[in-house]
């Protein structure tokens, strides 16, 4: 049952200290955040930690702050704290939609947004919301250099990100959205609040009751979350925010474009149907939120 032996356990109190520990040139360092993915990997011995560096005691990595009209969320902010923000996130309600249904209470009490984005599992909620909402990932490398990476460049496929060895995600920034923007996320899983079989995040821009553009992101694909260029092209062309036929057509375009893999439980066709259905619902919900409806 045990993980493989762990050489050292460190509990830095500052980012600087954590980076020094990781960058000491000895290699083998792994960060632990909520542990909700990493502990599974350590226990099953998929991952091994020569030196485990615990990020749970670094206060500067926690918290939700407004910044230049946008939103900055510390990497160590837990799903529970994001879920508690429901109704207060403006154009970024999708964050709370997702966080409120990650796993279960105990998982939400520990799991973090930074850990979720860093792990980038193929079926995960927060990475999809970050992609759908056009977030920017802030990180700092062991040299101390601070980096800002747009989410599209940060996500590099299944369980892969742009992070280099020892680099720490410090915060996720959601840029200031113009008036008339809104977002929504929902997933469908085998059981309630389970990992998504398919999850969809839609972020829309509206003006005078019309959708004028947006982003459409889907999880449950083989290579991690992806955007639908066809759905986004239809949003950019524009349609009335309450036009049910146009909303359906937009979601159907995403279902046609993306190729989720079938598995033992859910066929590829059924997953496409889920993209169409969840896409419709999330587009309508995001549009309603954007127009105050």
């Amino acid at each position: 049952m045990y993980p493989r032996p762990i050489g050292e356990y460190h509990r830095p109190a500052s980012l600087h200290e954590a980076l020094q520990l990781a960058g000491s040139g000895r290699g083998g360092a792994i960060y632990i955040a909520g542990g909700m993915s990493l502990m599974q990997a350590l226990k099953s011995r998929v991952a091994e930690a020569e030196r485990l560096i615990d990020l749970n005691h670094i206060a500067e990595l926690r918290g939700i702050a407004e910044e230049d009209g946008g939103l900055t969320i510390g990497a160590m902010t837990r799903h529970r704290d994001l879920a508690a923000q429901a109704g207060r996130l403006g154009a970024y309600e999708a964050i709370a939609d997702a966080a409120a249904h990650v796993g279960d209470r105990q998982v939400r009490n520990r799991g973090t947004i930074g850990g979720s984005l860093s792990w980038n599992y193929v079926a995960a909620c927060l990475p999809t919301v970050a992609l759908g909402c056009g977030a920017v990932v802030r990180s700092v490398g062991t040299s101390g250099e601070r980096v800002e990476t747009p989410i599209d460049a940060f996500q590099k496929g299944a369980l892969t990100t742009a992070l280099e060895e020892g680099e720490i995600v410090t915060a996720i920034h959601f840029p200031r959205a113009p008036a008339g923007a809104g977002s929504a996320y929902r997933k469908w899983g085998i059981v309630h609040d389970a990992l998504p079989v398919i999850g969809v995040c839609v972020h829309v821009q509206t003006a005078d009751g019309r959708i004028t553009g947006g982003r459409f992101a889907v999880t449950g694909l083989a290579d991690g979350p992806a955007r639908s260029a066809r759905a986004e092209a239809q949003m950019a062309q524009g349609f009335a925010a309450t036009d049910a036929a146009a909303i359906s057509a937009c979601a159907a375009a995403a279902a046609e474009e993306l190729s989720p893999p079938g598995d033992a439980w859910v066929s590829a066709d059924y997953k496409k149907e889920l993209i169409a259905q969840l896409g419709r619902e999330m587009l309508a919900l995001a549009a309603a939120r954007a127009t105050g409806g």
Partner: protein
Amino acid sequence: MAQTIRVVVNGRTVERSVPERMLLVDFIRDELGLTGTHQGCTYEGVCGACTVHLNGEAVKSCMMLAVQADGEEITTIEGLARDGALHPVQKAFNEHHALQCGYCTSGMIMNAVDFLRTTPAPTEAEIRHALIGNICRCTGYQNIVAAVAAAAAAMRARAAE
């Protein structure tokens, strides 16, 4: 390969030298002999049987290392009763037949106690949503949900006294 930790468990400070890789649940059960905390799945962290409180919040103790609890407060099912009197959630589980084999029970109760602390007047839907992380193979959940609702009512009544 080993580290000395000091943890306040059920109000008492314990100090032990533990290997870094020891799971918190194994520390609680094997080192401290507090076997009320159960271990169901262990690898995936999906069953909730091992739920304890870390500084008052429900967490799965198979999803943490014992060294991570250094300097923290842990409460297990053995630490809920006060002066020999069962906690209202424990009493309600007993009165509403909310258990059969009892394997899931300590985890259910630890989660419910934390849930009711943050949500003193839950709806049935909220109770069901709160218990998603705890699997019961026996009861069919009906009586568990009823027990949590009854405990909430009893605790509200007591708070109003």
